[in-house]
């Protein structure tokens, strides 16, 4: 029966839409039924419009029913033990891809995990009862867009006014000399803290008592509570310690208690003394900065506390607009305030995004290898499909396979990371006491999520691509294995990007690490192993010292007097041959400045026209102490200390690089200012010395200027002592002398002079290691990607190669056909990487003394990468050349 044309429902657009909705095996049958029903309705005399309405209703109803069923929604494939066994067998059967993928993911997953783990470690929680109820109050300076610690005034006002908190406390860090028996002094870190802190933290002492409010009263006996470690290691865990007198700096304190093991609040503190600062001793908004924290009352939420804090500070800002108008008090997590790290997820989002992107790129490259492997298994997949395996099942299987790989890689990566963390032990020693970088359940959970993420990108996505549409039918028509699959633009870009990253990172690695393993020298003529180097500083303690510190001249005078006394006592010490002071010692990283030389034109960089040099300030005995004669002119004398425009000394590298070999004596230089309003005075060069470690890696690049340093003008200041015996043995005596001069004087980082650049060397080695690691992954992945691309190309074009060979093509021509695409990607990647390296390496190293000879290194690395790439392509190319025409044509590829 032919349905009259006019009877055909006019809603064909709706039909097409509904046809899409009802897509599935019976879509055609449903649509035919609908049309037949429409026709019957019309034949029975139903008005057309009504028949159309019935048609459309039936259409939409059908679409709705179908959409709710499993007709077009694939059933979630069920996983069986066999699938897992097959996955394991496949991984073992392709050891190359498995190892490469495992290696890449074993690095990539921990890298992706790092921000989550670090953030979690920073955020605690603190090991105290209901620690989530303990918060801190800090200012946001809206003018400077920065945080600012409250002052003592704020603490007292808040403690009196705020009702949202059970109590508030204030704490500030202090570093003092602990003077032990025999006047042995050592630097220990502790806190000035209010007694209320212990109640807020809900801690009990291990021995004796904690601080009381009475201890904060002016005139009360100075007391101290010791940390458990300090009590154990320095006082032999003396059970009678309570009541004994201990000297901290210039103050003798009575020990009143010992805290339990593990208590090192707020960071890594070993003793606690009452907070000496009181608001009445200072003007408003002056005085020492403190950290204020408190415990929220039961039932009070953070936002309610925030509202109250804002109201109170608004009142104080109204009373003191000139100092407080731009300050906004905020209630923040205490861990953020104590560490100074805004470790919230929003702030860390860019870091998360970057590391996840790195992981995604790594997975993308692993996915390239998986894609090639899936393509090579297309016959197997076709058979499995014919036997009933759905596309989703095949994709699920590939996902499981990659998940096993990613899971193993994550476990290996976490294990390696735990081992690598030992490298950071020296830094973790000063990390907050609640910091736990060990593997926790949270870490494992995040690693598992990242493994799933990796398996999706590296496994499921390539499998979806490889099994899309009717690839299997295409396979038969194309007559070649995997012929329907293509390595598309994304894969090409991934390989190029990977090669570029490899070249750039390896260039950086070689530049930085090469410096780390080269000889660092402070100067050929300096017996650096006979000098002791250290830093001296005078912490301000108490309102009197702080008032003095507030006046720079008074402090400078006091510190200068101490410096001279130390120098006098050391010079009188038997065995001490020389003493000198400087802001930066040979071998350290000297600050960089720009200068202009009268009559000599300099280079332009960053808009600054001048010469880039390094600088330091040294006292008049410095060069004598190092036994360095003047090569020309004269050294510093007393007249240089007091003159407003004193003379300066330059080194040999300055003469070579800045003056081009001209005589420096009598020439004038001045510092270049970016603003015209601040013209610095001209300084006359009065003497020339040898190169003395301004650039310990490459002395010829260490052009530098020496300024005279009057006593007390630099704080802190470095001291150099030449001893008759091993310098390290003199450290205790040096501490004694310093303590005798002023008990509060602190001695930091004492070491041999030839060891002062150990931090620089560590930086270089760590930087080199990090670069090398990333470069290694990039090299392996790019080589593997190139290999996979080539192997895939050869298998895809076997028949074509056979035909070409049969027609007389030469081996070079065959190799060219096969390797052309890979070669283009390799060259593009190397060029991009070299350009990236040429821009990034000097930019990152900038003024660092480690940026030595990097252009040659970049070129060498680029060449190396080309060789690696060619090596990766060699295997498949040789296989292509070995193809026999007869076999190729017979097998059909």
């Amino acid at each position: 029966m032919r349905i009259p044309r006019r009877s055909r429902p006019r809603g064909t657009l709706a039909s097409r839409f509904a046809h899409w909705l009802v897509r599935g095996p019976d879509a055609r049958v449903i649509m035919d039924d609908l049309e037949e029903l429409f026709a019957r309705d019309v034949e029975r005399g139903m008005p057309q419009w009504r028949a159309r309405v019935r048609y459309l209703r039936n259409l939409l109803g059908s679409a709705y029913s179908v959409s709710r069923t499993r007709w077009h929604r694939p059933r979630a494939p069920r996983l069986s033990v066999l699938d897992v066994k097959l996955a394991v067998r496949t991984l073992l059967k392709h050891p190359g891809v498995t190892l490469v993928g495992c290696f890449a993911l074993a690095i990539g997953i921990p890298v992706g995990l790092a921000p989550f783990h670090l953030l979690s470690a920073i955020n605690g929680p603190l090991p105290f009862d209901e620690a989530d109820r303990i918060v801190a109050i800090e200012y946001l300076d809206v003018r400077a867009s920065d945080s600012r610690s409250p002052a003592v005034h704020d603490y007292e006002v808040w403690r009196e006014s705020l009702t949202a908190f059970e109590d508030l406390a204030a704490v500030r860090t202090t570093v003092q000399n602990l003077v032990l028996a025999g006047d042995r002094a050592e630097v220990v870190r502790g806190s000035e803290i209010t007694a209320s802190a212990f109640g807020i933290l809900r801690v009990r002492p291990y021995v004796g008592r904690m601080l009381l409010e009475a201890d904060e009263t002016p005139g009360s006996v100075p007391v101290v509570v010791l940390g458990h470690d300090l009590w154990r290691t320095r006082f032999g865990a003396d059970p009678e310690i309570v009541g004994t007198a201990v000297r901290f700096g210039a103050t003798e304190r009575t020990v009143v208690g010992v805290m339990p093991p593990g208590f090192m609040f707020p960071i890594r503190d070993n003793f606690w003394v009452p907070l000496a600062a009181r608001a009445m001793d200072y003007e408003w908004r002056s005085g020492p900065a403190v950290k204020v924290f408190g415990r929220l009352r039961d039932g009070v939420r953070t936002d309610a506390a925030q509202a109250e804090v804002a109201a109170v500070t608004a009142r104080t800002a109204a009373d003191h607009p000139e100092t407080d108008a731009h300050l906004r008090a905020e209630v923040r997590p205490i861990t953020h305030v104590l560490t100074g790290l805004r470790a919230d997820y929003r702030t860390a989002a860019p870091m998360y995004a970057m590391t996840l992107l790195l992981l995604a790129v790594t997975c993308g490259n692993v996915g390239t290898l998986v894609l090639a492997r899936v393509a090579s298994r297309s016959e197997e997949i076709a058979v499995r499909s014919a036997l009933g395996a759905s596309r989703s099942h095949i994709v699920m299987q590939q996902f499981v396979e990659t998940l096993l790989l990613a899971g193993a890689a994550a476990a290996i990566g976490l294990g390696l990371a735990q081992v690598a963390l030992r490298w950071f032990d020296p830094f973790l020693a000063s990390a907050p006491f609640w910091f736990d970088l060990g593997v926790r359940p949270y870490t494992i959970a995040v690693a598992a999520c990242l493994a799933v993420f990796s398996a999706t990108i590296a496994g499921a996505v390539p499998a979806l691509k490889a099994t899309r549409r009717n690839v299997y039918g295409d396979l038969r028509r194309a007559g070649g294995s995997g012929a329907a699959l293509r390595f598309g633009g994304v894969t090409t870009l991934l390989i190029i990007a990977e090669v570029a990253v490899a070249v750039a990172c390896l260039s950086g690695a070689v530049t930085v690490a090469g410096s780390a393993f080269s000889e660092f020298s402070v100067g050929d003529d300096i017996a650096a192993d006979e000098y002791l180097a250290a830093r001296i500083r005078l912490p301000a303690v108490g309102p009197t010292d702080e008032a003095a510190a507030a006046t720079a001249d008074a402090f400078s005078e006091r510190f200068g007097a101490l410096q001279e006394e130390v120098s006098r006592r050391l010079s009188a010490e038997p065995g001490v041959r020389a003493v000198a002071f400087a802001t930066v010692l040979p071998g350290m990283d000297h600050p960089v400045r720009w200068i202009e030389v009268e009559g000599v034109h300099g280079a332009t960089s960053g808009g600054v026209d001048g010469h880039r040099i390094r600088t330091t300030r040294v006292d008049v005995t410095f060069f004598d102490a190092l036994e360095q004669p003047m090569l020309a002119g004269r050294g510093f004398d007393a007249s240089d200390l007091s003159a407003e425009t004193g003379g300066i000394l330059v080194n040999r590298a300055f003469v070579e690089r800045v003056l081009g070999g001209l005589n420096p004596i009598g020439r004038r230089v001045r510092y270049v200012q970016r603003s015209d309003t601040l013209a610095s005075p001209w300084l006359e060069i009065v003497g020339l010395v040898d190169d003395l470690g301004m650039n310990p890696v490459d002395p010829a690049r260490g052009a530098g200027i020496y300024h005279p340093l009057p006593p007390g003008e630099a704080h802190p200041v470095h001291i150099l002592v030449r001893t008759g015996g091993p310098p390290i043995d003199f450290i205790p005596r040096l501490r004694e002398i310093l303590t005798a001069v002023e008990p509060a004087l602190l001695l930091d980082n004492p070491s041999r002079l030839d060891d002062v650049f150990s931090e620089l060397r560590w930086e270089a080695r760590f930087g080199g290691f990090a670069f090398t690691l990333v470069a290694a992954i990039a090299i392996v992945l790019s080589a593997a990607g190139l290999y996979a691309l080539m192997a895939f190309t050869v298998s895809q074009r076997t028949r074509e190669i056979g035909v070409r060979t049969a027609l007389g093509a030469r081996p070079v021509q065959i190799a060219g056909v096969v390797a052309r695409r890979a070669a283009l990607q390799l060259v593009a990647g190397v060029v991009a990487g070299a350009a990236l390296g040429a821009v990034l390496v000097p930019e990152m190293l900038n003024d660092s003394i480690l940026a030595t000879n990097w252009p040659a290194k970049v070129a060498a690395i680029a060449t190396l990468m080309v060789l690696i790439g060619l090596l990766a392509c060699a295997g498949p190319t040789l296989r292509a050349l070995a193809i026999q025409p007869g076999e190729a044509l017979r097998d059909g590829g």
Partner: protein
Amino acid sequence: METLGNFEQLLLFSVLRLGEEAHGVAIREMLEERAGRVASSGAIYTTLSRLEERALVASWMGEPTPGRAGRPRRHYRLEPAGARALMESYRTLEAIAGGQIGKLSELAAGK
């Protein structure tokens, strides 16, 4: 023993009644005329497809039909398992509802 939903029972009875002519259009019309139930073609086919997965019915494509631009219809027949399931449902209903029609009528009339 398979349990059947109400709509499934209606469909199976329709298939039973229609015999060789049990196809989508006819089943829909049977439901509408005899059971007063208007169901979309999609609902009918999805339910029959589920029943077919449970081996209660079987389907086959018939001869090309002129009225459907030459395309065939999908026909259904009741399988033994489906017959048994339907019989069980019917007997269960009969057992619980038997003799209650009079009472039901009075209740429905509001007495």
